[in-house]
């Protein structure tokens, strides 16, 4: 009875009792949800265009952020460092396509997946070798991101909105809009989508597989840089950031591996729900730190009812 009370009554009583705190929790969840959605978006783009489950997406986030901070530390102005980092990400995309993907074309999915894990390890070693393994400060204010905070007083309570979080949300939203415009309105973007629909048909109308792969990996790199800047501003830049890459995986399951809408909605849902669960159920009853697994278990439960995720393509199997 006591347990039932704790499970089904107390959390909601707490929520109603302190609505301002609830809002704060929701806001925190929303911000991390936006970031999960961003990483998941990088996954989805690569998966759609090449059927590669790119495990390296998370580490690309760290790598981009480290490069940016490292370049700035060398005395290069902040915005030029951003441009140079974009150049590095482009080089990375070209190298990966040339060295790893091209020889492995047509191999089973699991082999390509393992190759991306190999890339992950390589980037971890490479990044630590060059930039060192210690935690670094993201160059937030140097990039012109405001660092103050707004204080609101809803319901006579207290709500703190950090300006960098607001910037993060705005930045992410504009990135997603830009990406959707690119995919739907430009020639190259349509080519990416065509490749996602049917490889052979796309090749036969003259779409270059290689160019598109480089392009897609580069876009994933840009997304990684944005995510890295935003997340780095919150938590500092180090390889511990890798953990958030794992968070993007349940987002993908929830939303479906092929769906951009799924990645966004899944990311937001997981960000908010895991925060709520952690604050109102995890910490009082289970000793906290439930964020490590909650998203996976939630996605697992959803998948039991919809094996292709909420927005994924229906899996049709033929013998």
């Amino acid at each position: 009875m006591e347990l039932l009370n704790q499970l089904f009554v107390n959390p909601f009583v707490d929520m109603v009792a302190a609505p301002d705190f609830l809002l704060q929790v929701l806001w925190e969840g929303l911000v991390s949800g936006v970031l999960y959605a961003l990483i998941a978006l990088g996954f989805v783009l690569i998966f759609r265009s090449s059927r590669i489950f790119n495990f390296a997406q998370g580490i690309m986030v760290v790598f981009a952020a480290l490069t940016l901070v490292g370049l700035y530390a060398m005395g290069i102005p902040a915005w030029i460092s951003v441009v140079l980092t974009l150049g590095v990400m482009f080089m990375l995309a070209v190298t990966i396509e040339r060295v790893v993907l091209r020889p492995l074309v047509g191999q089973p999915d699991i082999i390509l997946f393992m190759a991306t894990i190999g890339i992950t390890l390589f980037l971890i070693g490479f990044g630590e070798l060059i930039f060192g393994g210690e935690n670094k400060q993201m160059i937030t204010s140097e990039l012109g991101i405001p660092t103050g905070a707004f204080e609101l007083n809803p319901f006579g309570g207290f709500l703190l909105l950090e300006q960098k979080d607001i910037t993060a949300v705005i930045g992410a939203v504009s990135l997603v809009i830009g990406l959707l415009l690119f995919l739907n309105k430009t020639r190259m973007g349509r080519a990416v989508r065509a490749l996602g629909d049917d490889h052979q048909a796309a090749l036969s109308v003259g779409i270059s597989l290689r160019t598109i792969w480089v392009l897609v990996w580069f876009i994933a790199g840009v997304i990684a840089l944005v995510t890295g800047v935003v997340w780095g501003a919150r938590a500092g830049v180090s390889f511990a950031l890798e953990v958030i890459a794992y968070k993007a995986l349940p987002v993908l399951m929830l939303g479906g591996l092929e769906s951009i809408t799924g990645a966004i909605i899944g990311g937001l849902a997981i960000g908010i729900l895991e925060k709520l669960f952690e604050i109102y159920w995890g910490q009082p009853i289970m000793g906290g730190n439930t964020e490590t697994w909650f998203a996976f278990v939630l996605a697992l439960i959803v998948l039991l009812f919809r094996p292709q995720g909420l927005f994924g393509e229906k899996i049709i199997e033929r013998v």
Partner: protein
Amino acid sequence: MLFRTAGQFKTSYLKDQTLFPVRQDAILLGIILAFAWVIFPLTASEFTFQTLLIPVLVYSLAALGLNILTGYAGQLSLGTGAFMGVGAYACYKMITIFPEMNLLVAVLVSGLFSAFIGVLFGLPSLRIKGFYLAIATLAAQFFLVWLFEKWAWLYNYNASGAIQVPHVEMLGTPVAGPQAASMTQYYFVLVVVTLMTILAINLTRGTQGRIWKATRDMDIAAELIGINLLKSKLTAFAVSSYIVGVSGALFVFLWRGAAEPNLFDIPISFRILFIAIIGGLGSIMGNYMGAILIVALPVVLKTLPETFGIPISSATVEHLNVMVVGALIVFFLIIEPHGLARLWTLIREKFIIWPFPH
């Protein structure tokens, strides 16, 4: 010449299906076993036991478990580390609750706990396939490691939150704990690994193995020819988790001596997946080859600059190591996506016809 099969006649189907249809294979295995059972233990130093021999055996056993699930039954799993953890914690609890228990029995029984948990997390595999399933097994990975951390009963309410292997004796000689000699531990592990390998070889050669392979190749087709997918997939999860659990118990009791929850975190799952894939999915022998590569590589990388007298700091070596392992994984996948075991098969074919070109 060395592998000439001429003159080895098979007069019945039974003979054709024996474990070693070619005599040279049996001889080769005999040589390897002689090395493993006699020559290595006689010549190895304490360092070799602890950094090479025991880890290779433990990791190859874990990879063998994963290979049954992924290589034979086709269910990709990323939660191996957590299942090793289940085996280790189960063994720890049993040994601390019943101190008189025989360690060999404890190790073999602890696999059962892992098998049970494995079946539980294997249930979604009936609905979820491919990458979705791989991510679903990550749920097991993260949830179980969290549980190892939060459920204080599991580590006997130690202040450190880690499990410490107690002193265990078998037949008057210490086999686990700080006083155990490396050679005893090596032989203990070797016995278990040999047992498990024989079990695995015969399982995968027999009816069950064929059922698994059919499930792997196309599960709908398998279902249509009358294979019960529920049974096939869940037995794969059970057998695989059992072996992985046993290897986890060995990992902590006979090698590490102590374990924190985060030891079973995702890096070890990936390491075992590498071993299985680099060795070759769907091959028993590949696990050993992969384990030798993955375990020996860091040791070689560490000693190589020292022998050439190049001064490199240990942190740099660590980073280089990660980098080289990553690059090697990609390299091996490119030259032979089917792993080292396939490479050996190709070499063996060459040996059979050598010195003739065809």
